[in-house]
């Protein structure tokens, strides 16, 4: 019976298990996002330094990480580190490491761009009315930077969540893996389960990412100069 495939979703604990898998995905991406934002802000400030050596090193890091597919980075950390240095990382830990390295690069570039987009006269006017360096940053530069940064950073969160779907390929048990287990165990009784399970996972991703990306678009429109 083709049209009964959807009942697999509601049988036993299947729905709860799928949502549990979603939670694993979200945990990994949110942890990586938090780390990336923190490190990315530091990286962005470092990249704004005038030192040419620092500039070259950060540039190479940035270009390499951005040009490599995230799946390749995952393989490098998950398989490469184990083989080369004997460090045995679980899939979850390597995922967090990779997404943090990647997210830091992306965030660092956003922070750099936002800082550079603040015209020089903002600093100078601040100084001219007698504010000290700390006050200039706290009251003038940082509020303006955040306005430019926040929509882009929120957008990065959705990209992070979407990219986290890759971790199933290095053996982490998350939503897709749980879905595959459910499909396998119902292969004989409900052969059409696959389409329902994958459609469901598809919509779960959509339900998670859509509000976040809407928020990003709204903020961007609201704060447009």
């Amino acid at each position, binding site marked *: 019976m083709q049209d009964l495939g959807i009942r697999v979703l509601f049988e036993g604990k299947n729905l709860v298990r799928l949502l549990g898998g979603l939670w694993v995905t979200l945990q990994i991406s949110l942890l990586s996002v938090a780390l990336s934002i923190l490190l990315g802000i530091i990286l962005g400030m470092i990249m704004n330094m005038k030192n040419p050596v620092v500039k070259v090193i950060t540039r190479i890091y940035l270009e390499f990480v951005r040009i490599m*597919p995230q799946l390749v980075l995952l393989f490098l950390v998950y*398989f490469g580190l184990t*083989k080369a240095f004997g460090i045995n990382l679980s899939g979850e830990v390597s995922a967090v490491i990779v997404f943090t390295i990647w997210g830091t690069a992306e965030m660092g570039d956003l922070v750099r761009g936002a800082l550079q987009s603040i015209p020089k006269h903002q600093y100078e006017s601040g100084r001219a009315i007698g504010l000290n360096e700390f006050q200039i940053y706290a009251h003038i530069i940082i509020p303006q930077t955040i306005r430019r940064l926040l929509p882009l950073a929120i957008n990065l969160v959705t990209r992070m969540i*979407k990219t986290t779907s890759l971790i*199933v390929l290095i053996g982490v048990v998350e939503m*897709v893996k749980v879905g595959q287990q459910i499909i396998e165990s119902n292969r004989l009784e409900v052969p059409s389960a696959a389409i329902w399970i*994958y459609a469901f996972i598809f919509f779960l*991703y959509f339900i998670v990412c859509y509000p976040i990306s809407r928020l990003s678009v709204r903020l961007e429109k609201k704060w447009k100069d």
Partner: protein
Amino acid sequence: MDIQFISKYLPLYVEAAKLTLTIATIGIISSIFVGFCCSLVRYYKIPFIHKIVSIYIELSRNTPLLIQLFFLYFGLPKIGIRLSSESCAIVGLTFLGGSYMAEAFRSGLEAIPKIQRESGLSIGLTKFQVFWHIILPQAVTISMPAFSANVVFLIKETSVFSAVALADLMYVAKDLIGLYYKTDEALFMLVCAYLIILLPISIIFSIIERKLRYAGFGN
């Protein structure tokens, strides 16, 4: 590093890179086509179709390619639609890329002030002429950075095709690791292959962007 191993299995990587590039090229060209049509539909607000296009764009932008591929490759056969790995990859890439390209073109189209269109119409050009000679060249110029970022992004996304059993670069690397346990060499070649493919593309696009910036209107 085992140089002999590398030279022995290099042809495998070359084959895989060719396959990856072929599929990426087809996928990107059709994404540009789909994206272009979608952005026009949204720009001119063609009734009804414009709603469907919006739904498509939101759906495709907010879901990962991997899930889209799984749905196409493992889900669809259950209702009798059987696609090969290759066509799955192309359809998946087009589904994803179409919306990204649409957004890129749309931002270009929307950036053009209304006065451009009105001036064109007032000097007696037809709607098509206004679009072809005035709107389009400017829109393409403006959307170029987003467009080139999308091309690189889409080529990067091809790395997940190994999940639907397409013998691309990732697949070869995984195979070699599994068969010979030559992890270092396999991963080294993988990284090199992606660098060789993506680095020139990203450099060429940044040159094109710099050249096109002079063609922009009003700066």
